[in-house]
């Protein structure tokens, strides 16, 4: 709903918004941000936080670029290994959380420092430049007009994650643990196992986002992932996820990502004073969530009325 209004306002003000190229740019930004947001959403689903999504994504990104540049590994193999690193990093998070019983917040804060630290130690803050042309092409070319290729993995993953949460026992287990881990345990769910799996999925998604970003930037930048954290929370929360866990929606998260992307793009198209960009961004996020909230309250009010009538 907010998306549609935002689209209309932006396109009224700036006809360039509907150009094919613009659509492509928007889709590219959305594709990657969806992966980041989902990576966090899975963990929000089990009622935890993963502060290390950016660090895992960045570490996978530079591993991917580094393996291709330094060892000359072909792109698909490097991507596979980088994703394996992401899953491994995620499983480390999960195992530590389960084993120590310490809050995920503290553990992922520590692993954030570790993964980011390894990233800096390997790269010494210098980017990897020699990204094979086909990788760059994957991140920057399109099919059927404005549809970027990176949309395909992103869409596939969205469908899979949605399927997992709605149709598969694993998804239901995740949410059960998030809603009430004690009750989940009593009903026979292996809570430790579920938490570790959730972190593996999160690591996988973060790594995919990192690799996609390398393809798009055509650079193995060590700073990849540094500012994912806020974005990763904002989209699911705008989309209505409850931070206490147990309730997430893949579709709503996708809309959350789209809202953020539209806002960012709108700021450029409207030529907002660079010194005011931050203010407008903040105000728009408030407006978007406020509107959603208001709508929820309205529907909550009208529902009982409909039942009685």
């Amino acid at each position, binding site marked *: 709903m907010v998306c549609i209004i935002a689209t209309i306002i932006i396109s009224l003000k700036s006809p*360039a918004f509907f150009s094919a190229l613009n659509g492509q*740019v928007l889709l590219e930004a959305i594709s990657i941000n969806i992966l980041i947001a989902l990576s966090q959403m899975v963990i929000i689903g089990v009622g935890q936080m993963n502060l290390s999504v950016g660090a895992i994504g960045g570490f996978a990104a530079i591993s991917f670029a580094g393996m291709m540049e330094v060892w000359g590994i072909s792109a698909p193999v490097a991507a596979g290994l980088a994703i394996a690193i992401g899953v491994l990093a995620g499983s480390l998070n999960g195992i530590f959380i389960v084993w120590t019983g310490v809050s995920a917040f503290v553990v992922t804060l520590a692993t954030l420092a570790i993964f980011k630290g390894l990233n800096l130690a390997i790269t010494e803050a*210098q980017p990897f430049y020699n990204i094979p042309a086909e990788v760059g092409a994957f991140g920057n070319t399109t099919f059927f007009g404005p549809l970027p290729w990176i949309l395909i993995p992103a869409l596939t993953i969205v469908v899979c994650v949605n399927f997992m949460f709605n149709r598969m026992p694993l998804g239901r287990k995740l949410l059960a643990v998030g809603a009430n881990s004690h009750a989940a345990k009593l009903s026979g769910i292996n809570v430790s196992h579920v938490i570790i799996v959730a972190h593996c999925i999160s690591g996988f998604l973060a790594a995919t986002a990192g690799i996609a970003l390398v393809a798009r930037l*055509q650079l193995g930048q060590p700073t990849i992932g540094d*500012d994912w954290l806020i974005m990763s929370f904002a989209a699911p929360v705008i989309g209505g996820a409850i931070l206490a866990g147990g309730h997430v929606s893949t579709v709503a998260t996708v809309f959350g990502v789209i809202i953020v992307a539209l806002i960012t793009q709108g700021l450029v198209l409207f030529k907002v004073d660079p010194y005011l960009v931050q203010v407008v961004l903040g105000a728009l996020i408030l407006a978007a969530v406020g509107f959603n909230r208001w709508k929820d309250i309205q529907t909550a009010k009208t529902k009982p009325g409909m039942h009685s009538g």
Partner: protein
Amino acid sequence: MFKYVTTAALSAVLATAAMADGSKVGLVPGGPHPFFADWEPGGLAAQKDFGLEAGDFKVPQKWELNLQNDLLLSMVVQGYDAFVVHPGDPVGSAPTLNEIVGTGSPVVIASACLKDPSDVAFCIATEARDSAYRGTKKLIESMGDGPKKIVHFAGWLVEPNTQLRIEGVERAVAEHDSVEIFQVIADIDAPEPAEEKISAYMAAYGSETDGIITTGWVPTVVAANALRKDGSKRIKMVGIDHDPVVVQAIKDGYVVGSMLQNPYGQSYIAAFAADRLRSGCSVKDDAPFTAHPLTARFIDSGAPYLHAGNVEDRAAVDEAMTKELLSTFEETYLDC
């Protein structure tokens, strides 16, 4: 035990300070950034050429003023006695650097400047406003006659050089009636926001734009890639610095040119000067410093313009400038 350790540490510090030969020079940038890749060889070369005890390049893990301050002070504890610093903030770094100068270790500022007043010796850097001005002039020249629209992609707003660069671009454009600044997009000296905003801009207004001036490292790289993707070579662009992507784009003709800053030479000469200052030299009272918006003690390391004509030998351009500056440096600026 406590007392013993303290005395031992103090005497160790005193012992190093008393040594007359080579200084232990620490080179500290504001944070990790590809720009400083040339600082490490600069420091090592200075160590070798001038017989320093050390020419160590130490990077704060993040661009964070407090991290840099903590790192600098911990290096004083470790016995470094001369510093080459790229200040994390031209104002906020001053108290810490003054404190260091207070311990008897000279501080030379490189690749940026500290705002007066401060106790540091001087700064050796590129004048950001002038460099942006000259870059914009080159861009306007390359676009030819007729009404033109240019866009300016700039770095972090919290970094004061950004303000100077915006002014520099505005000044150059003001001198040409036919040219106007279509838009300034700032706060994009990181790959993700740069990619997002520059792509969005190109998609919306690329067709109306005739020229691009970039004054930040990352925006330059991203804009150069965007022009390569576009492929038409209709939009002219002048960038900043020497990222391989930019150098290649100049070779291939997608980018007209780039304003260099010579970080190697800046760190090399600054390390030399810091060592000389520690071993008893002082800055001349009547040294011929150049004008700078922030400080009265500014040495211009030059901002060579990299273009298709000299792109093949960028290293030679830098080296020639470094040699020239060094050959007269001691007699021009120092009293020994």
